[in-house]
């Protein structure tokens, strides 16, 4: 599957939180196929930047446009996975994914086997280990058609094998013309990406 060309244009974005200036006059354009790692020390505003681009935080100053349209009109183009589990403990793996993605059972089961959760579709999320829960949340990457991925620390709690699987998935996504923004503290080995150092923005 190839995505329609999409770009994100960020201009003069500034953000202040709890009286701290996190970033100022941040301008950049993300083009189809781009993989961008947002890097910086703790508290540099990585999560804030990702959540702002995902439309979860109000933009304080500056603009974000996707294909020339304001951000608010393009939210369904975005897949955002944050720190929080994004899954409900009392529901089964399949029910969780079904609610968030709307895909059919066969599609979801295939996605689950891709992330190594084959046969787990009937388990409640609370019965899974932490890493498995994380895989369940990430399984959405295998069944959602959104061209823009915003992943906050996607590698946390993943084993080596799953890290590799995720890298491959992101590479495919980029090859299909999708955009991926992510943060991580363990730079992935098998992924080609550009880096945005948040401390040097100001």
């Amino acid at each position, binding site marked *: 599957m190839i995505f329609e060309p999409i770009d994100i244009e960020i201009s003069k974005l500034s953000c202040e939180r709890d009286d701290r200036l996190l970033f100022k006059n941040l301008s950049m354009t993300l083009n189809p196929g781009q993989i961008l790692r947002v890097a910086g020390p703790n508290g540099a505003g990585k*999560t*804030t930047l990702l959540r702002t681009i*995902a*439309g*979860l*935080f*109000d933009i304080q100053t500056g603009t974000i446009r996707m294909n020339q349209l304001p951000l608010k009109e393009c*939210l*369904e183009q*975005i*897949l*955002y996975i*944050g*720190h*929080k*589990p*994004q*899954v*409900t*403990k*009392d*529901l089964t793996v399949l*029910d969780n994914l*079904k*609610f*968030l993605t*709307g895909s059919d059972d066969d599609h979801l089961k295939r996605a689950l086997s891709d992330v190594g959760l084959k046969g787990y579709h009937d388990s*409640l999320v609370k019965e899974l280990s932490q890493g498995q829960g994380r895989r369940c949340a990430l399984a959405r990457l295998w069944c959602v058609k*959104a061209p823009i991925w915003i992943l906050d620390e996607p590698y946390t709690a993943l084993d080596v094998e799953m890290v590799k699987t995720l890298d491959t998935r992101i590479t495919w996504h980029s090859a299909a013309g999708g955009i991926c923004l992510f943060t991580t503290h363990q730079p992935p080995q098998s992924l080609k990406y550009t880096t945005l150092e948040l401390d040097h923005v100001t």
Partner: protein
Amino acid sequence: MSLERRMLTRELKLNVARPGEIFKPMWFLILVVSMLPLALAPDSDLLSEIGSAMIWVATLLALLLNTEHLFQSDFSDGVLEQWLFLNRPLAWLVGLKLIAHWLFHVLPLILITPIAGIMLSVPTDVLWALLVTLVIATPALTCFSGLGAALTLGSSRSGILGVLVMMPLFVPIVILAAGVLIRAMDGSDTLPLLALLGAFSVVAATVVPIAVSAAIRLNIGGSN
């Protein structure tokens, strides 16, 4: 499957998984109602006079306690913020959640009020009026207490603040419902008041979800 159906199925499955959430308020209602004769007197004339009002207040409290954490678990799981990407207005999704909450939590509560009525020897025709007022008034109550829950979502030490904050807004509903019960006791016409209550619920159900969605968006914007 449409998003609306997905949402309602999810709520249904969640409630099947957590049956305690449905039974706790019922338990509370029956407990409060059984405390009344103990605190007052086992005199059935006295009880039947104040019983219906007492049941109304007890149901109101049970509903409030139950609605207080309406969005809490979805919020802390991070599922609530995913609602913003679902290609539907947030207020619409909030409305669906409130409808599901009313169906799975409030309606069962209303259905056991006849038991409470029998315990307090409330006359049958008043009991009918009580049931009807509850069915008509609870949508508005659910909406307002949902707003309380959404406003206090981001604060960890809010306690029952959401309930306290919304309580004054319940005044007109309680007054109208009391009017219905009084009229039912003298056997006069309750229809105009019921219509007014119904209008209140309809307006609340259309307007309050917008405020709730604003409150939710606000709390998502403030959490890290």
